[in-house]
């Protein structure tokens, strides 16, 4: 299943502590103009996982698989994929 909403991605990730590297940084607008417009800090659920994996399967299309516990979900977010790629180069 592919979801294209960033809000869904953040919800999936639970915006947990481990998502700090990606989701929180993005939320603070640290990486790019698109993200700077989103000034709202993502909500961190109490039951969010402490760690999880985001696998960018197609960076150009922004396709990512989010692996939390024994579940997976595929989302599309070109901006986030671009930011993650930029973070890797930084």
């Amino acid at each position, binding site marked *: 299943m592919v979801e294209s909403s960033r809000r869904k991605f953040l919800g999936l990730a639970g915006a947990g502590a481990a998502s700090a590297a990606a989701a929180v940084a993005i939320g603070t607008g640290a990486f790019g103009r698109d993200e700077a417009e989103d000034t709202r800090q993502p909500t961190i659920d109490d039951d969010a996982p402490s760690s999880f994996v985001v*696998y960018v399967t197609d960076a150009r299309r922004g396709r990512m698989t989010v*692996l*939390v516990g*024994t579940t997976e979900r595929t989302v599309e977010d070109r901006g986030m994929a671009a930011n993650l790629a930029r973070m890797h180069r930084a």
Partner: protein
Amino acid sequence: MSSHREAPEISKDPVADNTDVYAFVSPDRPDTVTLIANFIPLQKPDGGPNFYEFGDDVLYEIHISNRGDGRADISYQFSFRTVVRNDNTFLYNTGPIKTIDDQNWNRPQFYSVRRVERNGGSRLLGDNLPVPPVNIGPRSTPDYTKLAGQAVQRIGRDHRVFCGQRAEGFFVDLGSIFDLATLRPFQNLHLIPSAAAVGVNGTQGLNVHSIVLQVPMDQLTRNGRAPKDVMDPKSVIGVWATASRRKARIVEDSGRLQEYGPFRQVSRLGNPLFNEVLVPMVRKDEWNSLPPSDDKSFAMYVQKPELATLLPVLYPGVFPNLAGYKKPRADLSAILLTGIPDGVVPGFQNFTGPVLSDMLRLNMAVPPASNPNPLGLVAGDPAGFPNGRRVSDDVVTVELRAVAGLTIPLVDPSYTPDSAASAIKDGTSNTNSWYFADFPYLGTPAGGYQTTPGVPGT
């Protein structure tokens, strides 16, 4: 081998490597079927101090299709959990292990069994079930047969289960077959000849880990009744086993492993030797990841098996009729991909329909043989392979002869098999612990202390 190290990727992951699958009407409880899935190939019995064990991070499954479409109607899932009792020692055991709950065993393993049905039903049949220790030697695991027997459990409605180390029951001449398909008894006829010799069992003295499950027949059929009529399609089930790993694995800086995501299949086995001998190397890993229902794209390797082309080349002049046979191998397709339909073998069928899928097909209405023939159906014993598979069936010889053309006349009466087709064999038999007549059927594993290491050859 049957399916030991049969594909490039799974050969690097022995804990998840299916080696053999068996399915047979239990000779001592003929209202039940025994399903066996073996894993972790070629275990050297003295392989301590970290002896062989099931993977806590692997999902092991035995699947049953009772509708013939190559999809699981019933899956039995086995999940393992290892406990370390004393984390201040390197020892597997700190004294003799006399009972299965002996505190001297430092690394006991437990498991759960869950039955999952295609309609979504799921039932936990047992939890915290004990795995026996491996057979270490007379000081550590005295009276091993009795000790392992304590791990036979009753679960669910009249199921029996055992998970643990067993003697390898599969026999094959590994050293010769992988040396350009040499069959020692016939190597005088090989392209690179040498004097004929007796076969050497390459699995001698080695162990495996077995999941053995005995299920009442009426819990495996689509109509919930024990089958009585051999010719009734509902009497036939298809069986295969799989192992799956989580989708992502992270090796943390501390060396600790973290796993994420759902389980993904990394190993599969239905009929012996299918992936090993028929599927080309570049597609073996793919095959391991798929369900039988996706086997249509592999049918070409059954209909035109590479080995059938090699035999006439490697044994010049021995297989002239096979060399001249150019039609697709409908006999092998029936045996391996659809089951044998009504009208091919009088009074017998194990046909599951037109869906091409590699499953071990068992017609449960065929009663156990009073005097089993290890060559099974081709020797007139319909209770044996390829009607299911018993632990004592000589599947290497059966499949060698089938590939060599012995079974072509079943579907093409105009074909005359080469005389060698009914004679070839690798010349091996079981040289490990003999099979038990009752559950769990596979013999006591070789002990580490008791086993003499092999002699290197040159």
